[in-house]
């Protein structure tokens, strides 16, 4: 474990910014601190950096407790949210700053800066000032500047927040590749789950100062452990009366989270679904939203509103049309616990998933070919 957070607590006045925070990050791993704004993720990052002090608990970097070590001695590179590039210094001086303040010899500084300029593809821009750069170039300068003193741990505070949508997408991949190439242990803060899922190896989900779940991106997406995570990740639709849906009993649960991919809506003459049409129930299309790559359908199923995506390759549908709807599964929520619930009709009739397999994946199946 390169970084370990043990029972960290932090309050600002009466506001508890961190409550019993525990997690660790392996060497060379790229981790995301993901949570809504005000969830305490930035406070955690700032405590690791030494910009805030933890009230209690231990922060270990490379096995050493660093709580009492000043920020500048922790061997950390920090990329600020708006990059905080030195406006009155050139790109070269920006990158060299961390080395020159530590009185590194001039030729060592020069070599290191040129190495980083090459790495971040900023060669030829070293004499420019930050305001003469594009958003993406600025991010790369900030990245190079943080890496220059060869830190053991790289921290990035919302590294994509200051960029416009198109550049953001390109840079996600760039940053991911670059961090893996350099091999530096990194943690970045984000409130954007797409960003976390796409860029990070592992994700730490925070809410109200607590860590909700830690794990691989895939696992967090497929197997949320708390009600909060199931509602925060993916495209959740909250359904109170999910007992009205075929195949489910509400029991003690408060409500359910139904993601669009959990819902199948098909026309009654669709041959692929003829085996399971008896398990479906009628749903009327209330609204259709064109999302570019797919349609988003809002359906009224027995008084419950559910959402599903529909491929543009399928037959056209219209508002008011009656569809047959099956909910494969959902996350049932009680307090802050969540449970994956399978459609009991499907489960009873098809416990091994054989039929599902057949109508979806067999030669004549829905996803065939």
């Amino acid at each position: 474990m390169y970084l370990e957070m043990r029972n960290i607590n932090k309050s600002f006045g009466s506001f508890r910014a961190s409550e019993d925070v525990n997690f660790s990050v392996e060497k060379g791993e790229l981790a995301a601190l993901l949570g809504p704004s005000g969830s305490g993720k930035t406070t955690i990052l700032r405590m690791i950096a030494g910009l805030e002090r933890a009230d209690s608990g231990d922060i270990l970097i490379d096995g050493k407790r660093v709580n009492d070590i000043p920020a500048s001695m922790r061997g950390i590179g920090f990329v600020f949210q708006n990059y905080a590039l030195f406006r009155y210094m050139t790109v070269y001086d920006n990158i060299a700053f961390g080395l020159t303040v530590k009185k590194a010899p001039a030729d060592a500084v020069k070599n290191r800066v040129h190495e980083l300029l090459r790495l971040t593809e900023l060669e030829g821009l070293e004499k420019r000032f930050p305001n003469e750069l594009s958003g993406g170039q600025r991010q790369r300068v900030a990245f190079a500047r943080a890496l220059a003193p060869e830190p053991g741990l790289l921290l990035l505070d919302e590294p994509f927040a200051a960029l416009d949508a198109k550049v953001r997408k390109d840079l996600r991949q760039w940053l991911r590749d670059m961090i893996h190439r350099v091999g530096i242990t990194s943690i970045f803060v984000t409130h954007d789950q797409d960003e976390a899922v796409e860029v990070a190896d592992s994700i730490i989900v925070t809410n109200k100062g607590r860590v909700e779940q830690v794990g691989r991106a895939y696992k967090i997406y497929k197997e949320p452990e708390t009600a909060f995570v199931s509602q925060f990740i993916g495209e959740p639709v909250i359904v109170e009366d999910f007992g009205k849906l075929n195949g489910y009993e509400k029991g003690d649960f408060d409500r359910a989270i139904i993601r669009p991919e959990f819902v199948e809506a098909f026309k009654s003459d669709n041959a692929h679904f003829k085996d399971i049409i008896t398990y479906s129930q009628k749903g009327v299309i209330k609204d259709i939203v064109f999302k570019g790559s797919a349609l988003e359908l809002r359906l009224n199923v027995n008084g419950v509103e559910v959402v599903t995506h529909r491929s543009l390759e399928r037959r056209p549908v219209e508002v008011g049309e009656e569809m047959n709807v099956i909910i494969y599964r959902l996350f049932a929520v009680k307090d802050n616990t969540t449970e994956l619930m399978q459609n009991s009709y499907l489960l009873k009739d098809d416990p091994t998933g054989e039929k599902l397999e057949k109508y979806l994946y067999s030669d004549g199946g829905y996803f065939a070919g």
Partner: protein
Amino acid sequence: MGYKKKKSTRFLMITVSTLFVGLMLFLPLVMVIINSLKKGFEFYLQAVSTKTVISALKVTLLATVITVIVNTVFGIFASILLTRFSFKGKQLLQTLIDIPFSVSPVIAGLAFIMMFGRMGWAAPFVDAVNNAFGWDIKIVFAVPGVVLATIFVTFPFVSREVIPVLNAAGSDEEDAAALMGAGMFTIFRRITFPHMKWALLYGMVLCTARALGEFGAVNALSKTRGETFTLPLEIDALYLSGSADSITAAFAVSSILVLFTVVLLVIRCVLENRSKKAQEEQKRR
């Protein structure tokens, strides 16, 4: 765009403003120069090189230089304190710094008399210091009093200009530099100072202009012509003595101050442009 619609409105506004500025500001200054040369250039040179005028010029320059240095140093400290630290009573301190803007300079001068004069509460301290070091420093009705009064009056100029600039710049860059191990002095020299540079110079120019022309506060504390008088006091004395010659001499001495003003105005104009540009650059980021 609201006002720009009618051409006649524009014409009217330009005419009124130009006339007003011309009549109220520019013409009087021109009259000073014309009047100062009324009795010929030789008289002019004579008038500005009398003993009392030279003495007044020296006192004025001395007071101005000390004032600008003190207020610049204080202004930098105050701006950093008020923009980078939070503490109890910050709002109060900010208000206190602005006092000279709202208090009449004459009152400021009288306050110093009350403080350092023979009966003043600070007089024993001054005596004690003088005794201890064998000095004989007088404050009231002496040059130190003039300097103190000038400092008081021009106190807020520098911090007034610098504070908004530091607020706009934010402290991110300083945090970043500190995180990389830069010390306080390095941070100031390489990051904070370049941010405030133009605003600081602009504040210093304003401070200089005001210090050169200060009358009220200095008048209360300076009573000896030829020793503690500043240029404005000397001009006043010449003018009040009433003879035609001395009135022309008063204009001649005034023209020195007008000359200073013009030079400062040009510098100010240049600096204002530079600091505006620098601020716009910051806003763009």
